[in-house]
């Protein structure tokens, strides 16, 4: 819609709600892109049923389907993405919903559930598999040292490294969660890693020294 048409759409004499109800998907989409949030609501109300059915038929779960529908409409509001004249709005919307649902389904399939983890732990225990106790203690000690070293870093570096290493967050996610710029996140990661390495190197000297003393006294 041209800006004059958009202006007319916003300021027609008829009631705005009725105005939106009879507007085409393209008019609503363009009004939404022009900042009219109620047009998004009308689009959602118009297409929610079908959108939900498409997602549910792939995911097999009502709640997950709701989540995907919300995500897709949120991303539509935030970034748009449809090019009028390319394919119909509904065709485009369904394709996006389908892609997103398949991604969700695959992520779910690749992520072991708590039940899977528990059963594999039980199997390992029964079969005598898994790491031996000494290895588990060594792994725990390393992890404790890493966490202690992390706590000695400046707070900003600590936050970025914790998100990156303990919550598997990548740079864009860290930027979003800390409301920081990409340069700032990358720089904090780099400086944090260097400081952590230096700290661990110093600690290693102390641990080696302690071990030597223990061995001499034994």
């Amino acid at each position: 819609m041209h800006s004059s048409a958009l202006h007319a759409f916003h300021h027609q004499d008829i009631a705005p709600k009725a105005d939106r109800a009879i507007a085409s998907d393209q008019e609503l989409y363009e009004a939404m892109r022009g900042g009219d949030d109620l047009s998004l609501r009308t689009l959602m109300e118009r297409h929610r049923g079908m959108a939900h059915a498409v997602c549910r038929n792939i995911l097999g779960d009502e709640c997950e389907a709701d989540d995907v529908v919300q995500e897709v409409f949120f991303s539509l509001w935030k970034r748009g993405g449809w090019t009028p004249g390319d394919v119909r709005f509904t065709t485009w919307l369904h394709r996006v919903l389908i892609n997103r649902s398949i991604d969700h389904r695959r992520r779910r399939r690749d992520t072991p559930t708590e039940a899977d983890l528990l059963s594999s732990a039980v199997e390992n225990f029964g079969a005598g598999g898994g790491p031996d106790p000494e290895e588990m203690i060594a792994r725990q000690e390393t992890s404790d040292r890493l966490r202690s070293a992390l706590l000695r870093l400046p707070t900003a570096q600590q936050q970025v490294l914790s998100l990156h290493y303990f919550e598997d967050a990548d740079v864009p996610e860290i930027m979003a969660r800390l409301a920081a710029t990409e340069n700032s996140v990358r720089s904090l990661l780099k400086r944090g890693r260097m400081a952590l390495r230096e700290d661990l190197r110093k600690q290693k000297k102390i641990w080696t020294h302690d071990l030597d003393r223990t061995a001499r006294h034994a």
Partner: protein
Amino acid sequence: MTLTELHATLDRLGPDISAWPSVLAEPALDLISISDAAKDLFAAATEASLSADAPAAPRWQAAASTAP
């Protein structure tokens, strides 16, 4: 799975792929994820099943809609 096979499977089992056996569901989703034609076919099947499930319009509404 080919587009024709997807079409046939949608006709036979309906569009609820989550209820399909995984030997059929996974190849179907592989195809749907890469083909716009397969996506459109699946969406059309879902839409058709929604229309079939929708309750019939009340008699007065049907009469009003056919009025000149």
